[in-house]
């Protein structure tokens, strides 16, 4: 019975924690952006403005949830759900601390890659079902962007897989007990980081949304809670990528201090939040790429780089025996 209870608690935690972080990020991102831009950001509602999240929720829930008459209704309604489901399912395989995971799959990494590919459907379907030119352009861009960045996102992780000799995320973290993979696999880390930015459609890879060109890109026609789902989906995806970077390159739960589960969880959270802060810092500093620059960067720089990285890693691992 305690085993089952513990399991249920873990599931509850894995469901609630990303949601809480994502909701908190809607406030945290604005505060951090303001910090980097010599402003204060939302600081009025509640202590330091944290209740802004609540205020936003109330506002967005009371908005009219409008489906345009020219839209393809079932697909239009389905699309925001897919993005949440796809990003959320990935959390199931992440190992937060020794034994704290919903499912320690031995193909955890592959599962994550599969799920992150699924979220392309959400964006593509949303743009298609909206039946409007801005949405369609945005979704076409995002299909091209996400598909091409997924190629080397997978490849950049293969270096880690070669070194750890497994797809199991728990085993990968355990293999980093001595040295975090960010040191031997720095190129892999760098490529995966950039691919993560592109997959979550963050600035400087926010071409699918591109407010200044495409109104709001693929979610132009969305309003109310459906729009909030996309928004939340983006934040959950950021959290997911930060967590994956932590697991794969930053040694997961490893850190100085006692080995208790709580401390391990604390280290994991700390690393994840720090990475999210870096994502936000990048958003505050860099301009959006042009579409041809994006494609060129992906195929001509990142893909060869990840291949070379994989080749060298494989050679070194073989040579060491």
């Amino acid at each position, binding site marked *: 019975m305690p085993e089952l209870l513990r399991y249920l608690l873990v599931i509850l935690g894995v469901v609630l924690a990303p949601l809480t972080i994502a909701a908190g990020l809607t406030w945290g991102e604005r505060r951090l952006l303001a*910090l*980097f*831009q*010599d*402003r*204060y950001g939302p600081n009025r509602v509640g202590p330091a403005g944290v209740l802004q999240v609540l205020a936003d929720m109330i506002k967005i829930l009371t908005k009219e949830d409008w489906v345009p008459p020219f839209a393809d209704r079932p697909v239009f309604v389905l699309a925001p759900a897919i993005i949440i489901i796809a990003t959320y399912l990935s959390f199931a395989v992440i190992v937060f601390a020794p034994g704290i995971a919903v499912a320690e799959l031995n193909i955890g990494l592959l599962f994550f890659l599969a799920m992150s590919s699924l979220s392309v459907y959400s964006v593509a379907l949303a743009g298609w079902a909206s039946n409007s030119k801005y949405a369609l352009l945005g979704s076409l861009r995002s299909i091209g962007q996400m598909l091409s960045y997924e190629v080397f996102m997978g490849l950049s992780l293969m270096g880690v897989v070669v070194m750890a000799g497994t797809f199991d995320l728990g085993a990968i973290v355990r293999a980093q007990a001595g040295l975090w993979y960010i040191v031997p696999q720095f190129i892999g880390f760098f490529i995966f980081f950039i691919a993560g930015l592109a997959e979550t459609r963050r600035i400087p890879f926010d071409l699918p949304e591109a407010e200044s060109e495409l109104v709001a890109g693929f979610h132009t026609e969305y309003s109310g809670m459906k729009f909030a789902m996309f928004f939340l989906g983006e934040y959950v995806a950021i959290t997911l990528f930060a967590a994956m970077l932590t697991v794969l390159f930053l040694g997961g739960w490893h850190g100085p201090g006692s080995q208790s589960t709580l401390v391990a969880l604390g280290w994991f959270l700390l690393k994840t939040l720090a990475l999210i802060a870096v994502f936000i*810092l990048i958003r*505050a*500093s*860099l301009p959006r790429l042009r579409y041809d620059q994006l494609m060129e960067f992906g195929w001509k720089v990142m893909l060869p780089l990840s291949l070379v990285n994989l080749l060298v890693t494989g050679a070194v691992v073989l040579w060491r025996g």
Partner: protein
Amino acid sequence: MLSLLRTIWSVFLHAFARRATVQYPEQRPYLAPRWRGRIVLTRSPDGRERCVACYLCAVACPVDCIALQRAVDAEGRHYPAFFRINFSRCIFCGFCEEACPTCAIQLTPDFEMAEYHREGLVYEKEDLLISGPGKYHAYDYYHVAGIAAADKDKGEAEGERPPVDTRGLLP
């Protein structure tokens, strides 16, 4: 690539820079005396209304938000029977103040005029009229205007020469 990293670093350093925000309700911004804010109708030093209902402000107003009606009192002075400014249209350009020959209409350093209803932004004469002379303390139109008023005759105003005798031969 290096320039990107430098950009990110310099943006990061801004986290420690001084904030540009003015925390408004607690921290008031400095408003210059000539700030163009809420409009008032002033009185001359003797406490009488300055406005002579000449309609110049209403004509000058680019958005037509001033409405007034002239009336004549027992002394023969003109005054506005009503004077209405619709602040939901006013753009605070200050043209009315420029146009006014009597310094009656003046803009003040006050911008806190928020209302829940649009009608609340239509100010009537009793809302606009203040008890003092505003920015021009000593100015009294009737004492420099060159026309007769109850307490003085033509040519008795300050710095004013007596009227020219149009029938005489000498200037």
